[in-house]
């Protein structure tokens, strides 16, 4: 590990043998260090991986100002989150999450009014797993700091974990995605004039599918360019589901200019079939239930 940049006596930017950048924190690690020097690894107390959401400069400013115990606490939450939610909860989430938690503790300690978060209901219905873990994280925060945060603070924590699924992407992307996912579910509710069971596995599967569809759309990646023969079969036997899926595709096209393709409409149709299977409505000649 070599020194790429010295921020101050206790924070340097290091590069490993593969050229990967890591922000290193430790008393004296930057003292009289110069670019190109070998890092004295015995001095390193913490390592942070920079990403799109947290540049090396921001991390350097953050580790200097955040209380060490808030970073320790966040490391514990990230480690537990990885076990509970999956390997996508990487160390990239550490810095933005520590920043968020530390500020939430500051607000609570200073008696600042509770914040009204947008997307509260959307997060509850779309991301039940992340929200459940976020509530557990509130317990960990209280245990470590003695500060009970209000239950609504689980909402932004859950969004940080959703964000982790897509790497170190800007959090506003995740917030926009959440609004859009809720709108796509509303299209099904409108078409069937019924509520769909928001705790069901079908919703969870559909939301997972939509999350990746959204990310592919944003990054311009297209797949399923060819129309599978099955799409024609679905269109013929499940006209209502296919029309609903088509409406979602049209919404995405008008809102973002994405052409999701007939293959994608097929996948969406199948999800609509699953989501509406329990509604007791006639779903066309293919419905054998």
């Amino acid at each position: 590990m070599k020194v790429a940049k010295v921020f101050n006596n206790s924070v340097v930017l290091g590069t490993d043998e593969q050229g990967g950048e890591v922000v290193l924190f430790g008393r004296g690690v930057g003292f009289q260090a110069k670019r190109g020097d070998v890092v004295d690894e015995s001095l390193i107390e913490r390592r942070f991986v920079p990403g799109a959401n947290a540049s090396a400069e921001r991390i350097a400013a953050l580790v200097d100002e955040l209380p060490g115990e808030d970073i320790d606490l966040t490391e514990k939450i990230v480690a537990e989150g990885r076990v509970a939610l999956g390997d996508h909860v990487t160390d990239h989430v550490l810095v933005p999450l520590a920043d968020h938690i530390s500020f939430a503790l500051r607000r609570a300690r200073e008696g600042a009014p509770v914040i009204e978060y947008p997307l509260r209901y959307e997060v509850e219905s779309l991301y039940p797993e992340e929200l459940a873990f976020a509530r557990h994280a509130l317990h960990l925060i209280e245990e470590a700091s003695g500060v009970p945060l209000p239950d609504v603070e689980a909402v932004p924590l859950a969004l940080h974990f959703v964000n982790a699924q897509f790497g170190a992407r800007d959090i506003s992307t995740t917030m926009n995605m959440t609004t859009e996912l809720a709108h796509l579910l509303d299209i099904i509710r409108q078409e069937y004039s019924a509520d769909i069971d928001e705790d069901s596995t079908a919703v969870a599967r559909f939301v997972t599918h939509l999350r990746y569809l959204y990310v592919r759309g944003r990054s311009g990646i297209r797949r399923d360019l060819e129309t599978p023969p099955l799409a024609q079969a679905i269109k013929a036997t499940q006209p209502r589901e296919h029309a609903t899926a088509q409406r979602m595709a049209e919404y995405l096209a008008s809102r973002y200019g994405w052409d999701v393709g007939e293959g994608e409409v097929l996948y969406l149709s199948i999800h609509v079939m699953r989501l509406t299977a329990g509604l007791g409505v006639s779903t066309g000649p293919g419905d054998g239930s």
Partner: protein
Amino acid sequence: MAVESTALASSIIALAGGVDNISGVERCMVRLRLILADPDVADVPAIASLPGVALAMHLMGQLQIAPTAHLDDLHATVVDAVAAARP
């Protein structure tokens, strides 16, 4: 809601030293984050005591302001005001 955000944005901009003192506008989920040309000009206690502001402070080289609600509107209004002042 939009009217409140406009009023709050105007107060914050004035107390932060005016649009000319704002060199960058960012946000996270909770905070409006202003990068100020001269941070010392900002009257942080006055911003913190504005109605609709939960907490305001200098952190990490930014003036960070947490409104109690409608951060989307507030952020958009401040971005527009700063952009309008730059020909």
